[in-house]
């Protein structure tokens, strides 16, 4: 009996205003958009009226996954969360967040490719999904509790295998800078308050079903093993961070940190990570230690093990056990997270005396994780902390707060980098207490607006990393020159695209990178060595387009864009080549819908284009080039005055960037003057109806 492969066939619709629960047929309605952000943008386009504000009941929040979620394809544990973004300034626009953990898989096993939440409940509720049994349940006893207690209480009802995505007090209190978290440490930023505005405390899901693979199971096993063989460490770094017996190359900045002598010190007994030859697929989980990478060598002794999303062998979350943090600050001995989550606590402060990778930093991180991941506060890729440091040390906070409130904070502790200060600050953000607590939770755009700080102060200073619309850069020119800048202009929050830095940071020598680049984007000139940028060319535009399309593809298929694409590999016998068609191979076999690499990239382009159309429609302008795709001043200014495209500087040249945007728009077949997609492009990608609607509003070039 042939079953649909990949997709499980139903999108759940929950109207919290009426209590109505229904389902839609995924294939009939959303197949051309794959899943994930594809479904998210489609729902927002079709159903959320222009002018809707994020906390209006008319806003929708879509939790969606792709056909590969829940399968054995490596790195598929991602859930996309799409909604109108509350920190997007000055006008809320569509954006998406993502959370890892177990939610994506569990949702598929319960029989759903997505959940569309609409309306608003009249009292706190949580959504219970046990296979086909979906109920809206009373959450009044959970309201006011942190994410951890909420998760455990729901697990008591649904069983220990359930995946629970919950908001903390920050989301409840409609703090825009809030998250939803599942599986202890996996957060989707920016969406907690949307759930809070709908009185939705949590979604708990338990599924006992299956995700079917249409293709032959032996072939599926082969492609999985191929994919595994091409994996590097976190962010698809393909060389170790110091010489290893098997390695031709190495790079001190690599996240492949395993080595003989480096141990999971808090495992019982300790486990040596060893040389981790890339051919040994049994040791993939030891290659990465995010805590050691971000917090330094001291973190090894505190490492219990790696952790992460279902199905992923990389384990980019690190579970740390730090007894000293527990005894000093009354928090749990155990904390876990990855990337910014790990750094959350530390970056509120100036680097401590023993440096950003010493014991004090580790303790600050433990306190930060403990508080933020329970209260459910978002950092906006560290912008919260950067803004805070600047606003304190330039005297703004002191001038904006009344004396009583200012004195209620222990600033002496803050200036001494004492993590206990976070116990004063973070709850006040979550509970909107006082001017400071309230303002910090709004997001940068609204902080600047509320405190009458001109945006130019932020856009001219590279140290703040601010890009536009209330959000920071995210892998821009510092990572990939013009390609990175183009990517950062395209979204309504920080770009969240890792296709390009995964490649440029993979640790291979520049000649090898150029050889691979030529194969994928047409010329070795597509990539430069970092800090040795050269003027724009069309290959960089192709790389930018590829990066963006693959990000949307991953966010729609459920593949992790923090690990893919897989265009490089650690294997010398392959010339360090990966396989640029892995996504299409997996998709075709799982679903039975055979698509080549190019064909699948076209679907991704359709999804990306829909995001573009939504942005244009909701901004009410076609002048995207000048009004949306903006680049902050600091990108063009080198602090020591070095000229662009000389060695040692990452700053860009305005004319060159203008040419870069020209080339990008040409690659995309959009109108160069406005940066707006043309009717031909919309039609070519099956979005003719979208073009019609935009045409009626005069939003085509």
């Amino acid at each position, binding site marked *: *009996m042939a*079953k649909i492969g990949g997709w499980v066939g139903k999108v759940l619709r929950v109207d919290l205003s009426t209590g109505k629960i229904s389902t839609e047929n995924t294939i009939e309605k959303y197949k051309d958009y794959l899943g994930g952000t594809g479904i998210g943008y489609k729902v927002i386009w079709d159903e959320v009226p222009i002018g809707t504000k994020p906390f209006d009941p008319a806003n929708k929040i879509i939790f969606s996954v792709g056909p590969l979620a*829940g*399968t*054995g394809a490596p790195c598929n544990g991602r859930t996309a969360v799409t909604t109108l973004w509350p920190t997007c300034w000055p006008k809320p626009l569509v954006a998406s967040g993502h959370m890892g953990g*177990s939610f994506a*898989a569990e949702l*598929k*096993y319960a029989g759903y490719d997505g959940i569309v939440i609409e309306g608003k409940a009249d009292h706190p509720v949580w959504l219970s999904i046990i296979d086909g049994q979906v109920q809206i349940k009373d959450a009044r006893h959970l309201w006011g509790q942190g994410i951890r207690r909420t*998760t*455990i209480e729901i*697990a*008591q009802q649904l*069983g*220990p*295998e359930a995946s629970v995505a919950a908001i903390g007090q920050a989301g409840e209190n409609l703090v825009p800078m809030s998250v939803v978290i599942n*599986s*202890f440490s996996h957060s989707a930023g920016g969406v907690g308050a949307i759930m809070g505005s709908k009185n939705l405390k949590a979604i708990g899901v338990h*599924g*006992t*079903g*299956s*995700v*079917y*693979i249409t293709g*032959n*199971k032996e072939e*599926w*096993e082969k492609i*999985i093993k191929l994919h*595994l063989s091409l994996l590097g460490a976190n962010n698809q770094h393909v060389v170790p961070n110091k010489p290893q017996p098997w390695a031709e190359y190495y790079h001190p900045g690599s996240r492949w940190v395993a080595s003989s002598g480096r141990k999971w010190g808090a*495992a*019982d*007994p300790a*486990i040596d990570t060893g040389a981790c030859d890339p051919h040994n*697929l*049994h*040791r*993939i*989980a*030891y290659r990465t230690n995010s805590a050691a990478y971000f917090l330094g060598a001291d973190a090894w002794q505190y490492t*219990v*093990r*790696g*952790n*992460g999303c*279902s*199905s*992923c*062998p990389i*384990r980019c979350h690190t*579970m740390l*056990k730090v007894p000293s943090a527990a005894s000093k600050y009354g928090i*749990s001995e*155990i904390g*876990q997270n990855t990337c910014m989550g790990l750094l959350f606590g530390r970056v509120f402060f100036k680097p401590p005396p023993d440096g950003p990778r010493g014991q004090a930093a580790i303790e600050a991180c433990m306190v930060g994780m403990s508080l933020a991941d329970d209260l459910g506060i978002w950092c906006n890729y560290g912008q919260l902390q950067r803004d805070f440091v600047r606003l304190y040390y330039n005297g703004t906070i002191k001038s904006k707060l009344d004396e009583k409130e200012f004195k209620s904070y222990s600033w002496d502790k803050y200036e001494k980098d004492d993590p206990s200060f976070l116990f004063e600050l973070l709850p006040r953000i979550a509970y909107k207490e006082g001017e400071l607590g309230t303002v910090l939770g709004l997001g940068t755009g609204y902080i600047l607006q509320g405190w009458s700080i001109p945006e130019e102060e932020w856009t001219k200073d590279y140290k703040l990393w601010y890009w536009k619309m209330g959000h920071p850069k995210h892998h821009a020119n510092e990572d990939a020159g013009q390609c990175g800048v183009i990517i950062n202009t395209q979204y309504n929050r920080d770009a969240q695209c890792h296709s390009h830095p995964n490649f440029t940071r993979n640790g291979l020598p520049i000649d090898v990178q150029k050889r691979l680049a030529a194969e994928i984007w047409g010329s070795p000139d597509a990539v430069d060595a970092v800090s040795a940028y050269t003027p724009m060319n069309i290959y960089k535009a192709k790389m930018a387009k590829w990066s963006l399309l693959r990000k949307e593809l991953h966010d729609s298929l459920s593949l992790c864009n923090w690990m893919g694409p897989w265009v490089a590999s650690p294997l010398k016998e392959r010339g360090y080549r990966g396989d640029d068609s892995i996504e299409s191979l997996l998709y075709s076999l799982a679903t039975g819908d055979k698509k080549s690499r190019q064909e699948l990239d076209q679907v991704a382009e359709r999804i990306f284009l829909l995001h573009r159309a939504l942005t244009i429609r909701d901004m009410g302008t076609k002048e995207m080039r000048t009004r949306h795709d903006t680049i902050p001043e600091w990108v063009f200014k080198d602090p020591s005055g070095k000229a662009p495209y000389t060695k040692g500087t990452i700053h860009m040249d305005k004319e060159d960037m203008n040419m870069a945007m020209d080339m990008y728009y040409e690659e995309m077949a959009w109108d160069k003057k406005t940066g707006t997609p043309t009717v031909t492009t919309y039609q070519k990608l099956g979005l003719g109806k979208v073009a019609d609607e935009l045409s009626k509003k005069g939003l085509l070039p």
Partner: protein
Amino acid sequence: MTHQDEKHEILELALNFVGLNHPFSRREFLLISGVTVVGISALGAKPGKKIPLIIMDKAEGIVIADPTKCVGCRRCELACTEFNDGKASPTMARIKVNRNLNFGPKGVYAGRRGQGNWGNGLITQDCCKQCPHPVPCANSCPNDAIVVQPPTNARVVDAKKCIGCKMCQKACPWEMMSFDSDMNKATKCFLCNGTPKCVEACPAEALNYVAWRDVTDKIPPRVIPTAVIPPDKVAACIQCHKK
């Protein structure tokens, strides 16, 4: 015929089958290790007598797990069902990790004092112990559908004989039986004919396929079995074990 005679007859049948043709006492019999006494019912039952399936073969290998290395990726569960059954179905996986992943074997009520992601980090991977005689799942099956499969001698569900009654699910003290609801058949770990896919899939070297040894008295049970053993099997057990 007395009970003792019946017993001897069964034993003689069995010994003939393996080419040992002299009288053995019960005690001597049980001391012989590795004697194949598979499917006595297949030898041709005495007319009117149903002779139960007794599995004396020990398995050749067993999957053992190290909870201190499990990183909770669940690739073992996925490999088990995707590569064997063509579907990702952790509920049906014949190695079971997800149920201990978050809180440990004691479940939610262990809270932060427990194991798993919300406790101390340890993740217990539940593996089939390929029990020696008496094999609880096999004994409980009214159709003798759980058999020994050479060359691994894993205890395996013969899908042709399985009627989907689910009695075996209740028999295993470690709750290791799975059920394929698409096929309406029980299923269990069959060691993948000697190269267990879960072991192959583990990215943390937390699973090993080793020479079989009896771990049934070393790992605490998860449940108190509530299966009903078919009466004729009970009678046969008594035959052999009665003094």
